[in-house]
């Protein structure tokens, strides 16, 4: 399937490029344009080497490794509780959500289950990370097309969510709060009410973004029909999260493969969009942020009482075995494949990050697009550099 569509797309691109050359006597081929490593659209240090033919991209090759920190190797020489410190720093905008699949995988190997209260609070913090993370995207997408206001709104309102996370965990970006068997602490007094009012504000923020961007004529012109990814291509590349759902694939790990958190206790829905273009990726994320605030509202109503920590030994030794657990993180499917040999630390950890797969489609999707569209497509794919480079 993909092989044919690759060829078809190549033929289409070369035909278009040939058309563009008809009236121009100049040879415009073989120009190389470097986007990044320090371009604002790259959210960090990612370089995209584009070979241009006139205004169109022929080959776009992402070049990374500027931030490679070797976490898979470092995890091998640490104990399980120490690994979460590193893992926090993979997707630095949705940090609490990073810890959860790793802890769940370790818990599965140990055959420990966190008490219900811990699971609910975990789910709440997970969704708060999602809101804080995606809120920044919702504003940042405006910057990619030259609208500066939304990003200031996003930074302003995201701070409210970060404050709530900080109140519980003590850290804005690197909470390091999840423990094997439960959580480090309980939620503070009065936190539930505060969070509820923050969720109301975040819904207002989503409405503002909708008014500012979604209905905006320029935004629509720049994003509609740009960077279309068909569902079968998206699956082959392993795209996940909102990028996959924007291509019309109705798949959400929270609903379909819940690894033991409380999403099945509340009433919510998965949003998809049939178009697969930059606009639909923005739209899906906007709806998901709204949905997340509703999930948090419902979860806040029903936090069960009880302990927040299961009985676990003081020195954590994980029995031998292998486990792969992935969750629906703000950016997509994040999973940890842990190989344990019964030691204090993991024998091997394979970190499957969403952005790595999401960006690997760049060479495919960039073929034949115009240079300004490179920026909007990159922005709409939404990646965090730490999540690509690990």
């Amino acid at each position, binding site marked *: 399937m993909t092989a044919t569509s690759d060829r078809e797309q190549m033929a289409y691109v070369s035909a278009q490029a040939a058309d563009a050359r008809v009236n121009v006597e100049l040879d415009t081929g073989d120009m190389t344009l470097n986007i990044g490593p320090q371009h604002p659209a790259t959210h960090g240090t990612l370089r995209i080497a584009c070979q241009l033919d006139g205004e169109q991209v022929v080959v776009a090759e992402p070049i990374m490794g500027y931030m490679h920190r070797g976490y898979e190797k470092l995890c091998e020489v640490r104990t399980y509780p120490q690994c979460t410190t590193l893992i926090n720093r993979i997707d630095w905008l949705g940090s609490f959500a990073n810890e959860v699949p790793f802890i769940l995988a370790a818990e599965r190997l140990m055959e420990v289950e966190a008490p219900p209260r811990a699971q609910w609070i975990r789910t709440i913090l997970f969704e708060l990370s999602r809101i804080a993370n995606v809120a920044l995207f919702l504003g940042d997408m405006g910057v990619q097309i030259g609208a500066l206001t939304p990003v200031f709104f996003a930074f302003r309102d995201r701070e409210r969510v970060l404050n709530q996370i900080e109140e519980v965990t003590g850290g804005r970006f690197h909470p390091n709060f999840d423990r094997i068997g439960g959580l480090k602490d309980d939620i503070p007094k009065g936190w539930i009410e505060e969070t509820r009012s923050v969720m109301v504000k975040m819904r207002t923020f989503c409405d503002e973004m909708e008014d500012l961007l979604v209905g905006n004529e320029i935004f629509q012109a720049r994003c509609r029909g740009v960077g279309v990814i068909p569902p079968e291509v998206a699956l082959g590349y392993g795209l996940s999260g909102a990028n996959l759902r924007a291509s019309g694939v109705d798949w959400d790990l929270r609903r379909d493969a819940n690894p033991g958190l409380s999403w099945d206790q509340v009433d919510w829905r998965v949003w998809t969009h049939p178009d697969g273009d930059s606009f639909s990726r923005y739209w899906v994320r906007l709806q998901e942020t709204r949905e997340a605030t509703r999930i948090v509202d419902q979860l806040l109503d029903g936090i069960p009482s009880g302990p927040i920590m299961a009985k676990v030994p003081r020195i954590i030794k994980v029995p031998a075995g292998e486990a792969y657990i992935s969750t629906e993180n703000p950016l997509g499917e994040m999973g940890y494949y842990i190989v344990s040999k019964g030691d204090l630390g993991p024998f091997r950890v394979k970190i*499957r990050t969403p952005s790595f797969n999401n960006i690997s489609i760049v060479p495919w999707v960039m073929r034949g697009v115009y240079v300004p569209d490179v920026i909007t497509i990159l922005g709409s794919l939404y990646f965090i550099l730490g999540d690509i480079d690990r």
Partner: protein
Amino acid sequence: MTDETTTEETPLADDKRERLLNDLSESFGEILVESHLRPHEDVWFRVKIEAWQDAAMVAKGAGFEYFGFLSAIDWHIAPEGRYEDTEFDAGLVEEDDEPVEIDSSTGYGGGDTRFQMLMQLYSLNEQVGMILKADVGDDMTVDTVRDVFPGADWHERETHEMFGISFRGHPTLQPLYLPTEFEGHPLRKDFPLLARQVKPWPGVVDIEEIPEHLEAQLEAEVMAAFEANEGGS
């Protein structure tokens, strides 16, 4: 290595995965070496390395269209590469001490060689994942699955630089993360982590054993706190 296809640890039967295990074992036929099932968790298949690409195609044909990840495992037993601070590595273990136990097991589905390929696929129709493994031979070469799952392109590049495994048929096996002039394969177990050798790891204190005379007392305290918490709130 024994065939551990039937696992009777959990009372609840996992029909979905068992059916999948039977169906795929049949489709794989001769190329399957070993399989393993953990009910309600995952299914593992170990296939012959020559049939790595075919196995990917069979899996894709059986509905596993979603490409999760591709990587490798180095089963090399190298305590010296793991705990530079342990007594064993520091050379403090005397010859007449008890020999250090070396665990040479190779995970679910088994493994006979040092390097093993690892691939995770997901079926959206069945909502179930599977893990595919294959032992890498001495020539350290595997067929590329890039044509089956285009997403494998970068994963293979990463595996190539991190483990030194070559992929037959992959057009651009340039380094993805590492600088071009980098020597060695960092995720191999015998690749030393230099930072640890320069400076001892301070985190080792974290896992210090509790002195014997305090152990009972601490245990009682923890239990008391736990019970108080469980009864209250």
